[in-house]
């Protein structure tokens, strides 16, 4: 029997319980695919052992790119390609370029961050969402475990999940 595309789904009614369950399940050596909850659970990132997001680094890179582009563009346009006398200033003078540079830095940093986030989170149009349990938008918390990620079989994992206080332990697969 293949374990491809098969998930064990533990349904919980309380956020404290989920936090404890996550710790216990991970302590048992089981890899958790994802946790879903209707509201943010404080400390869940640490419990899941997530590394810090690398998004700030991407934001910095895009910001630096924006700054470079803005300065290059302005110095090339105003200083070389189409020189114009404005206020009797030098063709290439830094102070008037700062506001535009600032704006482009912020713009590229923000857009780049959104884009990176969408790519990293696999948020693309027409993507079919994997809904493990429709009640995650209502009053239930869900821990999803991908069978393909784990060495233990279905029965063993279901047993451990049930022991952590899950109200239901379901099996879910997607087309």
């Amino acid at each position, binding site marked *: 029997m293949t374990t491809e595309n098969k998930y064990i789904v533990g349904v919980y009614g309380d956020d404290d319980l989920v936090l404890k369950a996550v710790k216990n399940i991970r302590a048992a050596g089981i890899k958790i695919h994802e946790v879903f909850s209707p509201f943010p659970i*404080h*400390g869940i990132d640490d419990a899941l052992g997530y590394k810090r997001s690398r998004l*700030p680094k991407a934001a910095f890179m895009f910001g630096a790119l924006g700054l470079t582009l803005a300065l290059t563009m302005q110095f090339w346009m105003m200083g070389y390609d189409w020189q114009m006398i404005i*206020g009797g200033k030098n063709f290439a003078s830094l*102070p*008037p370029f700062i506001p535009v540079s600032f704006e482009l830095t912020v713009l590229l940093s923000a857009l780049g961050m959104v884009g990176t986030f969408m790519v990293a989170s696999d948020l693309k149009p027409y993507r079919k969402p994997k809904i493990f349990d429709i009640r995650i938008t209502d009053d239930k918390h869900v821990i999803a475990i991908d069978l393909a990620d784990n060495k233990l079989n279905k029965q063993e994992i279901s047993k451990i999940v049930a022991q952590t206080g899950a109200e239901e332990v379901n099996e879910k697969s997607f087309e």
Partner: protein
Amino acid sequence: MSEDKFVFTADSQKKLLIAKLAAIVLVVVGILIVAFGGHGHEESEAVGHHYHWLHRVWVNLWINNIYFLGISLTGVLFLAIQYASQAGWSAYIKRIPEAFGGWLIFAFGLTLVSFGLVNFAGPNHFHLFHWLDHSLYVEGGENYDAVIAGKQGYLNLTFFLIRMVAYFILWIMMFRFIRNESLKEDSFGGDGHWRKLRVYSTIFIILFAITSSTAAWDWVLSVDTHWFSTMFGWYVFSSWFVAGLSAMTLIIIWLREQGYLMQLSSSHLHDLGKYIFAFSIFWAYIWFSQFLLIYYANIPEETIYFVERLKSGQYAWVFFINILLNFIFPFLVLMTRDSKRHTIFLKIVCSVILVGHWFDFYLMITPGTLGENGGVGFIEIGMAALFAAGFIFVVLRTLAKAPLVAQNHPMMEESLHHHI
């Protein structure tokens, strides 16, 4: 919650005393160098009076007086902001900004005394504030200055002194209200004191919004009497605020290293770091807004301020170092999360910012008063160190008077569990 009290040990007091003595020695050495170094009595075109080494001491007195007064006010303002915004995270560290207010009463005396010294005690009729010169207002006289005479309604000695005393009375009064209420909360508890503190804090913030601007015009802007800038009040405020936040963070880190504030978490430091990061950018924004408009409009009576600084051998380097230390350095270093959570980065950045903003005030006041005779030497370092030692002494003494951590603060639980 711990009941620990900060103990201002004899050892710390001795160290500060030694620092003060060393600073005085530095000032004396600096004076000797300036007085006998061959540049003692040069004619200064910019000021119009004969230069004397004492002028430089007076100018430094005024710079440091304004600078440390601002740091002290920042403490009270920070506290007021926490109450007005009902912030919880800062409840654990609120006694440190509160202790900064202890300097205000000394600053009052120092400001009155140094105002007298810098304007009326100087050799060769030295006035730090050019507009105090009586001959400027004699119509038809040799020195008559129509522009300054037109400002006489605001810039005259009587009104100036009335304002000076009024600012201090308002500030000290509001600080006493806040401090007393905070101490009452320690003894009696309940959230009634906290609610009263919110009212006092809001009143202080409104008063400070106005008085910080007018005080900046009076004490810093009027040095360059002809020149004016509508950004100036904000500019001085932002400089004060970053410097004050840095001083506060440094003292908190020092206390932690001395074994106090054991429940201080990296999240508290992170928030302080964010404050410093954000207001360094705010300062740069104000700095640039002032600069760009004057640069672009290119009106001689406005550009003279920057010409005096950029096109001068003495001040050009200070002009650039100002931007480097106060914006570029903190901006790049404090950008990452880790640097705001580790004390080593905060210690470096805060120290750099404190030096940087001293230079900021130096650059605001010196070119208009000393002109070509200004410089950075032992006098500057010594006077700043003397004020710093005195300020730290007063702050630590105030800190030792009350429990180091506020008792019965309604937000204390939230502060202890602060997690970001």
